[in-house]
């Protein structure tokens, strides 16, 4: 089968090589600092993500999961190896990527609506029309997204007037408004309570199923990974490398109830064992 650029992904596992590659890391390493103070954050990682896939990265804390995200977004350059995103090597300037961190990082001097429209002010082709369309088309776009995450009528509030869960929803809107082909999420729900988190899983799943971007999600929560991802990569302790790479075949849309079924629990346990082994291996090395 020939490679098709921009082939749509139907949410189900597909045979290898059927779709275009969105993200490719080959032997990518990252070391922070130099000489005696050098801290290896990621060692020779190879990872290939197809267009439209939803990949979750799990692993012990400080294992370099976030480093992979920062590599893909272009915020960090690889010390060695190659990172190819959207068919191009990641240069100093990143391309059309949506990003959301654990901290919602809404700019406090702007209303939620203007915060969400921020990427349109920066990214072409929206940038050139921003002045002309910010009061009409772009505002409608922002409000349509807000409606999709259940934040109707909160557009003209300021960030401090919203709760943590609401801010994180707005954060997802901001990551999606410029219609990125790629969504990079760094523990976006880490600071939320269990119920809000489960609610947002469903919202994110819904957003993914309508917009179909390639998603790379870093998380500590194995249930979250199982609920959302179509593929889960387990990483070893620092310096990180990928230990296991498995597909998640549960039908969509998935529900919270599904996460208590035996099949799901078994997946969780398998992932858990991997991470525990990685942790104890790291401790032995350190000891």
């Amino acid at each position, binding site marked *: 089968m020939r490679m098709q650029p921009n082939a749509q992904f139907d949410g189900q596992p597909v045979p290898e090589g059927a779709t275009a590659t969105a993200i490719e890391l080959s032997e990518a390493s990252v070391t922070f600092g130099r000489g005696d103070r050098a801290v290896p954050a990621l060692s020779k990682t190879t990872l290939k993500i197809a267009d439209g896939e939803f990949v979750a990265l799990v692993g012990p804390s400080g294992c370099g999961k976030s480093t992979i995200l920062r590599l893909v977004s272009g*915020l960090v350059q690889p010390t060695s190896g190659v990172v190819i995103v959207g068919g191009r090597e990641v240069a100093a300037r990143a391309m*059309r990527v949506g*990003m959301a*961190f654990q901290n919602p990082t809404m*700019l*406090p*001097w702007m209303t939620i609506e203007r915060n969400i429209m921020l*990427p349109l002010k*920066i990214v072409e082709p929206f940038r050139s029309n921003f002045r002309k369309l910010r009061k009409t088309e772009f505002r409608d776009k922002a409000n349509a997204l807000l409606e999709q995450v259940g934040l109707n009528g909160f557009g003209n509030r300021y960030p401090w007037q919203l709760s943590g869960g609401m801010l994180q929803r707005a954060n997802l809107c901001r990551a999606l408004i410029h219609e990125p082909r790629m969504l*990079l999420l760094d523990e976006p729900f880490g600071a939320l309570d269990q119920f809000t988190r489960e609610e947002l899983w469903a919202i994110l799943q819904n957003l993914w199923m309508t917009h179909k971007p390639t998603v790379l999600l870093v998380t500590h929560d194995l249930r979250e990974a199982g609920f959302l991802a179509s593929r889960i990569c387990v990483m070893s302790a620092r310096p990180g490398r990928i230990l296991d790479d498995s597909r998640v075949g549960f039908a969509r849309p998935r529900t919270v109830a599904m996460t208590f079924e035996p099949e799901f629990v078994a997946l969780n346990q398998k992932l858990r064992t991997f991470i525990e082994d990685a942790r104890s291996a790291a401790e032995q090395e350190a000891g």
Partner: protein
Amino acid sequence: MFGIDVRQKAWSAGLIVLFFVAWELFCLMTGMSDLVLPRPSQVFLTLFQRFPVLWPHIVQTLATTMFGFVLGVALGAIIGVSKTAYDTCYPLLIGFSSIPKVAVVPIFVLWFGSGTVPAVLTALSICFFPIVVNIATGLATTEPELEDVLKALGASKLDILWNVGLPRTMPFFFASLKVAISYAFVGAVLSETVASNRGIGNVMMTASSNFNVPLVFAGLFVLAGLGVALYVVFSLIEGRVTGWATRKNDVIAT
């Protein structure tokens, strides 16, 4: 919350009134000569009677102060915004700002003659340092996460400065403006006192050599009044621009 606010303002107003009343009573009871310490009522009377004469001097001082202040803000902002410029200039700036400005005025007078130019330059040189330091501090303490949001979108350095750095720095900037405007007054009046034939500083010098002490005090009152007025103006602008940073009051909410 409303009640507390009003009570606070009443206390502040009360303290001002109390200050003048105590001063008046002190002079009356001790029989103080108005050559040493005039009563506030005398000062206000002098201020009222001599106001037409004082007015051009007030305008002169206000104009030189504002001119020096605007130049100081521009220079301070240019140096403060660029990290390279700030790091390069910093040692020189500290050295320069440590020099008492009284010592510099004669040099300005030597170069530019007495009058407006030295006053503007003194106001500028005394007021721009806090602005530089505050803008640089504001930019340096901007949360990297806020910048990362834009960097991940491929924003240029100018985009980041314009959309994140500068708005984030506004509270620092306004705090420094409120300090700088009083500094600019000090500088302008200082220079007028030493070498000028116009301005409130000059009026006070002339009055004190004529032993017209109430007029000297009237000059002080004018300066205090102008200082307060400009402080209030900047506070109002600050409230509008940086209300998000002091979000306890609902100034800009919805």
